[in-house]
């Protein structure tokens, strides 16, 4: 039997487990500091001392480190043995010689591992009266606060930061009693996963700087199980609120998704809920009104418009709002779309169908791939998928990245393939060709594609990950075909554009976005209802929406952040942010997850779904029950509760996917536009003060070779021209950008009216 005994309790274990790991898995507490499930054992802190009973009569009991001692059947372990107790007490007493007496002013207090362990194992009072070692703290940027004096040298931080997250700008410096955990010099931590230091460090060395600016003791926080609203991964979180404001977000374990960690967008993006420009007051044509007046005005407009109405839902809005708005609008005789850009709609719809047909791996499963191809800038779109790829890479997976701008993953990749946006699907097709006809290897191996093809072909568990927004429908299909050509063992995953993009795709009908946009453009729509979307701020289609909404009688907007669309609204109904309401998102795996309401504001705002239900009921459309709308959409699914691991949708329909046609419209200039994104780039997190202060500067970035050919100097300013207008930007030259590509941030793309892969004219300014 594979079990051993801890103080008369039977503890099961897996082969290769150490005593500590098996004990913690079985819910048996053994004090420890340096051991961490994700980081393994180090044997550095010596707190996990336990006594092992002699197996032979002539032997004596031994005190061992539970994290270093392999679990064996028949082992008899005691945590309570006096010798082990004394050893642990000694360790704590030593650690406390240098630790400051600052629990009352320490942010970690109340959830501090050191505090808990000291109370649990330490001596009751302090004998040491000497000087304490002190350090100078560093400014680590706006997200993480540093207080080095509290360090107990467990090395969890650097093991996490360097070995797990593969960051290079935080390290362990100096030696002896002066080991210092920090950066070479002051400056913001560079890793998109830096915030996890706050939870990894067992003391108050690294704490949440955003939370610190509006601090509350952990026991005073209102919390509830939630889901991150910032991307399609759907990491599980535990937001904390106090006195009607949201203060912080912590990780909440999900065994198949995020487990111990979050990305910094997920951890610090929540500040959007406290943004000063957040819409709080309902408005009708510039006048501040109360909710019922705004609702009345909206009803009036809907009634007047008759069937000439349209509704726009959103991949960042919950399932019930999308489903209910669709019902309301369709029953009213109008058009509904859950997207604002037909290109994104098509790409998402295709991705969802391929996932539906071919299945997709959990985040945890991605770590076991032995060859990975990432098509697109994954870190910027679904950061925790990037962290999964990093684990696979640590497990010796070969990683190939096809990207068009500087990309954190590409710097770690074995195959770093830089291609202009429109070359990506060409390369994917070429890879597929190489795999289909193994012979076609050597015929001019551009960009190391042949090696990558061979690696994927010979892998046991190849994994292909595509970024839907930049791949477009054509690239999405090309990636799926590539996966199919690799045979049954290949796994396929897509980073979808939004926390509920999957849900939006199943509510949406094919081609609906184009229909709605055209109907608005041709004046067929008098009243447009938009919930949690910013059509006017779109990159590719924003300028068309901006022109088209001029033809409406009324634009009704519900949202919880400021946007171009909110500012253009005739009737604005501010809605609750995700933590102020409950709802459902469907993540990239097709997993339906529920997030609970965490807190209520002094003046609560309604959830979008409640507003839509009020409208539907007042219009007597019989569409007003969110649960019914979801039940119709997902027949036979028992919806999960908040805190549960969620329910993965099994393929309901075996849809044949019509191959998308690549559009080449809009070719006006020589330069292909590539989206320059970063890990904080998200319609909600853009409004998070601390996080967005780290956003890269707005520049037009091109490759050195391209700059040479175009005779552009480093310090030049350039004028960009697109269908919606022109924009001057400083030029930046960067070897990480693909040739013939100009990388632009989203806001610049929106102003000139081009999407990723579109063309612009660019010229040097005098």
């Amino acid at each position, binding site marked *: 039997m594979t079990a051993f005994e801890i103080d008369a309790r039977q503890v099961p274990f897996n082969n290769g487990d150490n005593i500590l790991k098996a004990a913690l898995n079985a819910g048996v507490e053994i004090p420890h500091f340096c051991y961490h499930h994700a980081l393994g054992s180090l044997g550095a802190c010596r707190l996990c001392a336990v006594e092992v009973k002699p197996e032979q009569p002539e032997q004596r009991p031994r005190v061992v480190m539970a994290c270093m001692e392999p679990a064996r059947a028949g082992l008899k372990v005691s945590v309570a043995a006096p010798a082990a107790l004394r050893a642990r007490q000694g360790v704590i007493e030593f650690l406390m010689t240098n630790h400051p007496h600052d629990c009352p002013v320490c942010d970690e207090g109340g959830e501090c591992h050191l505090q808990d362990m000291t109370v649990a194992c330490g001596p009751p009072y302090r004998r040491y009266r000497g000087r304490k070692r002190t350090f100078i703290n560093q400014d680590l940027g706006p997200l993480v606060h540093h207080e080095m004096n509290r360090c107990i040298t467990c090395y969890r931080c650097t093991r996490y930061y360097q070995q797990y997250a593969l960051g*290079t700008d935080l390290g362990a*410096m100096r*030696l002896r009693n002066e080991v210092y955990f920090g950066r070479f010099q002051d400056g913001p931590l560079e890793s998109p996963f830096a915030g996890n230091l706050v939870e990894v460090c067992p003391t108050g060395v690294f704490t949440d700087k955003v939370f610190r600016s509006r601090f509350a003791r952990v026991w005073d926080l209102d919390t509830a199980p939630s889901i991150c609203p910032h991307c399609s991964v759907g990491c599980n979180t535990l937001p904390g609120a106090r006195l009607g404001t949201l203060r912080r977000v912590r990780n909440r374990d999900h065994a198949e998704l995020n487990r111990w960690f979050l990305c910094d967008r997920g951890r610090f993006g929540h500040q959007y809920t406290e943004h000063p420009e957040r819409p709080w007051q309902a408005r009708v044509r510039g006048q501040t009104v109360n909710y019922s007046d705004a609702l009345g005005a909206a009803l009036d407009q809907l009634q007047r418009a008759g069937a000439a109405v349209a509704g726009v839902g959103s991949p960042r809005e919950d399932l019930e709002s999308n489903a209910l708005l669709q019902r309301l609008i369709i029953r009213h005789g109008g058009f509904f779309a859950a997207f604002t850009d037909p290109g994104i709609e098509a790409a998402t719809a295709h991705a969802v169908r391929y996932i539906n047909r071919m299945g997709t791996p959990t985040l945890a499963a991605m770590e076991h791939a032995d060859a990975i191809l990432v098509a697109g800038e994954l870190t910027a779109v679904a950061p925790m998928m990037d962290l999964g790829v990093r684990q696979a890479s640590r497990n010796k997976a070969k990683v190939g990245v096809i990207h068009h701008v500087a990309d954190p993953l590409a710097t770690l990749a074995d195959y*770093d393939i830089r291609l202009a946006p429109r070359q990506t699907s060409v390369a994917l097709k070429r890879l597929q060709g190489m795999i289909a006809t193994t012979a076609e290897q050597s015929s001019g191996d551009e960009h190391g594609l042949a090696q990558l093809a061979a690696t994927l072909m010979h892998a046991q568990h190849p994994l292909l990950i595509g970024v839907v927004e930049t791949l477009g429908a054509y690239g999405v299909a090309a990636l799926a075909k590539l996966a199919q050509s690799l045979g049954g063992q290949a796994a396929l995953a897509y980073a979808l554009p939004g926390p509920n993009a999957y849900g939006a795709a199943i509510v949406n009908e094919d081609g609906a976005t184009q229909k709605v946009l055209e109907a608005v453009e041709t004046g067929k729509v008098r009243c447009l209802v938009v919930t949690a979307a910013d059509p006017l701020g779109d990159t590719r289609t924003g300028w068309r929406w901006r022109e088209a909404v001029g033809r409406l009688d009324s634009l009704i907007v519900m949202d919880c952040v400021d946007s171009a669309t909110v500012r253009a609204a005739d009737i604005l109904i501010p809605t609750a942010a995700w933590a102020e309401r409950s709802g459902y998102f469907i993540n990239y795996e097709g997993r339906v997850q529920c997030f609970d309401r965490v807190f209520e504001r002094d003046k609560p705002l309604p959830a979008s779904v409640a507003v839509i239900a009020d409208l539907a009921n007042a219009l007597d459309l019989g569409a007003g029950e969110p649960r019914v709308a979801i039940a119709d959409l997902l027949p036979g699914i028992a919806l999960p509760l908040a805190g549960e691991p969620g329910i993965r949708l099994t393929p309901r329909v075996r849809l044949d996917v019509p191959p998308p046609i690549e559009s080449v419209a809009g070719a006006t200039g020589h330069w292909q536009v590539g989206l320059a994104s970063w890990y904080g780039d998200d319609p909600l997190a853009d409004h998070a003060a601390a996080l967005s202060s780290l956003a890269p500067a707005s520049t037009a970035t091109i490759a050195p070779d391209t700059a040479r050919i175009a005779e552009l100097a480093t310090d030049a300013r350039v004028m960009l021209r697109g269908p919606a207008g022109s924009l001057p930007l400083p030029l930046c030259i*960067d070897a990480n950008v693909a040739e013939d590509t100009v990388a632009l941030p989203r806001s610049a793309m929106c102003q000139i009216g081009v999407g990723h892969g579109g063309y612009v004219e660019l010229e040097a300014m005098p």
Partner: protein
Amino acid sequence: MAEQPNQNDIHPTERIKKDRAAIVEVMMELQAKRGFLDDQDVIEAARRTGLSPTEVEELASFYTLIYRRPVGRRVLLVCDSVCCAMNGSERLLNTLERRLGIALGEVSRDGAVTVLPSICLGLCDRAPAALLNGEALGPLDDARLDALLLELKRSR
């Protein structure tokens, strides 16, 4: 110093694949200029090896023979690991501080010498042991210590 290609022209992957193992030699070479590494030298070592400045600092601040501050013309490394500690390294260090008039890590006023504690020098058979610019000394009993101090004074 060899001509370095422009940072922007080297692709990151190639940079990372450059031999990181050269770091100790690179630090030694940079240190040879002035006897220690300043912040610019750390950045330069990072640039040459593909390590990050933090990774270079981890090594620079760990290795006893790399100095991040100015040191004297001669550096006396006094072992304070187990064998030497049992054989009086603490007294030795105190005596050196007192008789040279400098604290550990400081440069004597004439720039001649810096005394630093060190982990085991591999001279445990000669405990308490020390290393003077690479030359092994020990066991440093009172007589040998006097001779050493005399020599340090003469070489000033």
